[in-house]
């Protein structure tokens, strides 16, 4: 459904997206996971035809975005980070407006509005102006606007920022349902839990590159059976390197003053490692061990933690 080949985009000297390629199948939820500034929004903006790529190609339903944009626009929906609607208008008026703009006929529109409002628990509030809605309710309307014309491809740019758990689960439910009905979804997030829970496949993105992609299981295989350990204390990078040199079957992911990230069998290797540190008279502040999961994958691939 969505195919991206060697896509790049620079802003002056900053390379926002650096030669990325990926493929998303019909009905699949693909999560682009990465910290702020990773290039997720730039990628989604190029797919939405808001930005012209410097190099590379984008195909949606086998149509080239450069030559068939008019057709592509009809099959695409977008949910931006901003609350992109009119607060003076009611939920119903907003949905009618955006639906008509997408060419949905009035009768179908009325049915869909009712369906989605019911699904999101907003039925009964449809005539209230949106300025009277809570943040979570507004997020739900923002999502419905993107879905009202039942697009083949839905681009969601961090649609769950700053909302409560209940609303988040409600949004997940709607997205999953849309996916089960055949809508392909490209979902950007920097929330690991969200990506794990929602996405069929995940692409880990940092500094404009996709570092790895696959299902959660496939990604965890990258780390293997090993744990990820994060050790922090009062030591220099030089001392850390000296101590680690004697340790076998351990991969150094990141090493800097006061902080080491390692891939290892934690139960066996950590006690040995700590002994070496204490022998050198170095105090250790914290040791955290992560079982193989998306977070450990992210840590291994990027050398940094992903925080909300």
């Amino acid at each position: 459904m969505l195919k991206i080949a060697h896509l790049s985009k620079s802003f002056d000297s900053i390379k926002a997206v650096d030669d990325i390629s990926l493929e998303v199948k019909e009905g699949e939820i693909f999560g682009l996971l990465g910290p702020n500034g990773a290039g997720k929004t730039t990628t989604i903006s190029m797919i939405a035809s808001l930005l012209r790529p410097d190099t590379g190609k984008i195909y949606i339903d086998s149509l080239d975005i450069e030559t068939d944009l008019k057709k592509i626009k009809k099959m695409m929906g977008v949910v931006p980070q901003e609350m992109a609607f009119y607060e003076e208008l009611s939920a119903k008026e907003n949905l009618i407006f955006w639906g008509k703009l997408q060419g949905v006929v009035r009768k179908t529109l009325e049915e869909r509005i009712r369906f989605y409002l019911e699904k999101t628990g907003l039925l009964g509030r449809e005539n209230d102006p949106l300025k009277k809605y809570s943040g979570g309710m507004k997020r739900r309307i923002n999502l419905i606007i993107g879905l009202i014309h039942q697009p083949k491809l839905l681009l969601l740019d961090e649609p769950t920022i700053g909302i409560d758990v209940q609303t988040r689960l409600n949004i997940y439910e709607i997205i999953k349902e849309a996916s089960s009905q055949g809508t392909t979804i490209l979902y950007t997030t920097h929330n690991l839990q969200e990506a794990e829970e929602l996405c069929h496949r995940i692409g880990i993105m940092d500094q404009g590159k996709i570092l790895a992609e696959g299902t959660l299981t496939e990604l965890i295989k990258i780390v293997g059976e090993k744990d990820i350990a994060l050790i922090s204390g009062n030591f220099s990078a030089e001392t850390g390197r000296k101590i680690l040199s004697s340790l076998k079957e351990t991969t150094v992911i990141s090493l800097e003053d006061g902080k080491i990230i390692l891939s290892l069998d934690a139960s066996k290797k950590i006690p040995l490692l700590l002994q070496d540190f204490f022998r050198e008279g170095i105090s250790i502040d914290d040791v955290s061990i992560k079982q193989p999961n998306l977070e450990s994958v992210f840590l291994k691939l990027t050398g940094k933690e992903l925080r909300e």
Partner: protein
Amino acid sequence: MKNLLLLARKDFIRKWRNPIVIIGFTLIPIVFAFIFGLIFGPSQEKTLPRISVLAVDEDQSFFSEFFLSSFKQGELNKIIDLKKVDKEQGLKLMNKGKASALLIIPQKFGEKIWEGQPVEISLLKNPSEQFLPQIVEEICDISSLLFSSLFSVFSDELGTIKKFIDEGNFPDRQISSLSVQIKRRIESISKYVFPPIISLKQKTIKEEEEESPLSVQAYILPAIAVMFLLFICNVVFEDILREKKMGTLLRMTVSPLKISDFIWSKTLISAIIGILCTLILIALGRIIFSIHWGNPVLLFFIVICLNFMIAGFISFLYTFIRTEQQAGAVLSSVFIVMSLLGGSMVPAESFPPFILNISKLTLNYWGIQAFRKATTDAPFREIFPILLGMILAGIFFSTVGSYFLNKSLKKGLLK
């Protein structure tokens, strides 16, 4: 077209539900017209204040009394407040600025008149007053002239009377002969004097406020209205930047909608809201200030053309604007300068020729001219060129504005 109307309808509902700014901008011209009307309009009291005149009669004769009594005759008595004083008191009061003029009738005034010799009277004017002493001077001139004429006509009879008085002898026969002579003299001059060839008919001109097409408000309201229409139309166009910020424009860009439809919808709704506000102003002008607006059909065309021109012009201006801050600072300055040059604040007719030529390059000038011609019931052939100019300017500005705004929006959608 369908999308254009859909967008325009959406914007109209939004403005309808949040009308405070537009209502404010619509009512300001009414408030301005009201205040300017109070300042520059005709006042209720139109009579002159009474002129205080001090008189020093050093002669105390029949003739001096006769001369002074001329100031108390008929209408003059209503405007002149004559007060007799001695010379010292009179000068003191004049020094204090308590009177407009001091009239001094010298000694032997009457005696010299009897003898047919020239006499002089003195008039001291209060230098701190501009017009009132001038009026007193004019009255003195006229009274002196009348006095001189009277003594010239009756010089023989007066000579005879003086002879009787000097001798202290009043013979009956000569008295009756003198009476007949005076009667004949009066009869002979009567045919030249009565009825007077020139008569002064007094009439107080009451300003017909209800019908006058050029009342102060009829002059001011359209001028200020044109200025505030710029601000009203701008309120709609500011939405372009707001929609960019809100993400709704981005969402529209991803939809099948053309950006040019979005821009034209702003021009359309801006013109429609401008038209409605102008019609409200016209109605309020009629109700509150009884302004005569001329032919309603013609007026309606003026309103449409003017607002189309303004909306187009603002869309053109927005091709240079990138942020809301720029819109606030730059456009307000442009509107104020244009209004000043265009005659919204000061009548363009009072400008020197060079500035007047610049004034003709502003929207305000042509808008005001169109309204002025309508309020003075100018023929259609005089208004038509202005309407045509407005339409052409509107087409030019909105087309160029739409083209460049389309380009700049597409370019700058991603923050």
